[in-house]
């Protein structure tokens, strides 16, 4: 095994081009587990810790450019207003120790359906910026996941950052695990309201081979809110609408039975999360309490 230590992004891309089978490692929270347990023996590791720009974020007019290796703990502390859904999700990642090391780039690279950052990225709307010595491209996040633990990266590409839409309305993230901390998602749900465009975004985790959006549920809810004039009136979302929304969210799922939970439970819990998070975001929208994070 080789251990490559690029000093900057250019060197990193050159290293990846020269060693397409090399595995990039930043927080190590996935890669090292596989190495420690003998599940993976890459020819080379590319250490991304020394590349300063991967650990930087920048807030633009409409989007946040989030470096691939900005640790979750900094997302929680520094971006709760701009990226409330992602900050909530970051707070559910592993343990404080993991949150100090892991970042969104690792979640995307691993592309596990259980990765906690996927649902809020899907709900908010995001593009993954990947690069190689051949150039840079942006991939809409919903196109980034191509299968169970597979993604759209070419062998010579690395994830540089994610461009995430700044919150223009309330966002929520909720995940079910069978322990009250440090737990992998049995299922997870992210929801974002975009009052300016009168649209909503969703993201589902651990209920399909890849993280997915519930497009039909989004369209239904947008239409229902519009038709009832609720964006303007701030009226209560009728239970029937919330119920139908939850049903459509579940319809987008394709869960399996595994040691963490049954497919039936995942569907059930997803519906509950969809209803509850809709309640929470809509309450916040009505009360204009945007950006007030809780513990």
């Amino acid at each position, binding site marked *: *095994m*080789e*251990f490559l*230590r690029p000093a900057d992004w250019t060197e990193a891309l050159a290293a990846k081009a020269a060693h397409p089978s090399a595995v990039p*490692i930043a*927080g*190590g*929270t996935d*890669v*090292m*587990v596989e*190495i*420690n*347990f003998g599940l993976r*023996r890459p020819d*080379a*590791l590319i*250490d991304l*810790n020394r590349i300063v720009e991967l650990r930087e974020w920048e807030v633009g007019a409409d989007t946040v450019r989030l470096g691939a290796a900005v*640790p979750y703990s900094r997302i929680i502390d520094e971006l709760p207003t701009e990226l409330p859904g992602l900050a909530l999700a970051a707070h559910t990642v*592993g*343990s*404080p*120790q*993991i949150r*100090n*090391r892991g970042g969104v780039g690792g979640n995307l690279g691993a592309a596990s359906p259980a990765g906690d950052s996927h649902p809020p990225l899907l709900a908010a709307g995001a593009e993954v910026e990947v690069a190689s010595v051949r150039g840079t491209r942006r991939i809409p996040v919903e196109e980034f996941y191509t299968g169970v633990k597979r993604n759209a990266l070419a062998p010579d590409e690395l994830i540089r950052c994610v461009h995430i839409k700044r919150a223009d309305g309330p966002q929520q993230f909720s995940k079910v695990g069978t322990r009250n*901390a*440090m737990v992998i998602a049995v299922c997870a749900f992210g929801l974002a309201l975009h009052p300016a465009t009168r649209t909503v975004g969703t993201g589902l985790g651990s209920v399909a081979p890849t993280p997915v959006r519930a497009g039909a549920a989004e369209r239904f809810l947008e239409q229902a809110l519009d038709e009832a004039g609720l964006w303007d009136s701030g009226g209560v979302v009728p239970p029937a609408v919330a119920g139908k929304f939850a049903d459509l969210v579940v319809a987008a799922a394709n869960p399996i039975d595994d040691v963490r939970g049954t497919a039936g439970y995942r569907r059930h819990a997803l519906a509950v999360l969809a209803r509850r998070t809709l309640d929470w975001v809509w309450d916040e929208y009505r009360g204009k309490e945007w950006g007030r994070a809780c*513990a």
Partner: protein
Amino acid sequence: MRVSFTVNGRRHEADDVWEGESLLFVLRERLGLPGSKNACEQGECGSCTVRLDGEVVCACLVAAGQAQGREVRTVEGLADGAGPPGGLAPIQQAFVDAGAVQCGFCTPGLLVTADALLERQPSPSDADIREALSGNLCRCTGYEKILDAVRLAAARSAAGAAPTAPGPEAPPAPRSEPEPGE
């Protein structure tokens, strides 16, 4: 490969490190610092918790090469600068006094984590303590006496600090400050 970094203020070098080794393995097996513990090696127990450039991390998930040139602090260095040589850091003393140690395998990681908490937040609430320690598994104590120990260390440091009237900017007082033991 060769890896060199600072541990508890001292420069260390390790040779012939296999590239897949973790910082934890290098600390324990190559540098003679086995205080950080090898309970799960998958970031799910916190027994190997160390400070890496000040951040609380699982040493099992840091590739040895990633520690190159960086500063690591382990349980062995917790008492450095905390009093006379050979003495204990306040959090260490509190763990002993409160009966927070049974088998002790989780203790080094808990101490490093709790020490960092109190550095950041000298008077944490019970819920804050629980959240901060939620990545450190203990199988013996049921955590009650670990909570006691952290409260005790916080109370002792508050009692030791110069008394000032609590202003609006003062951190909230602990919700309960029971004496260790029952």
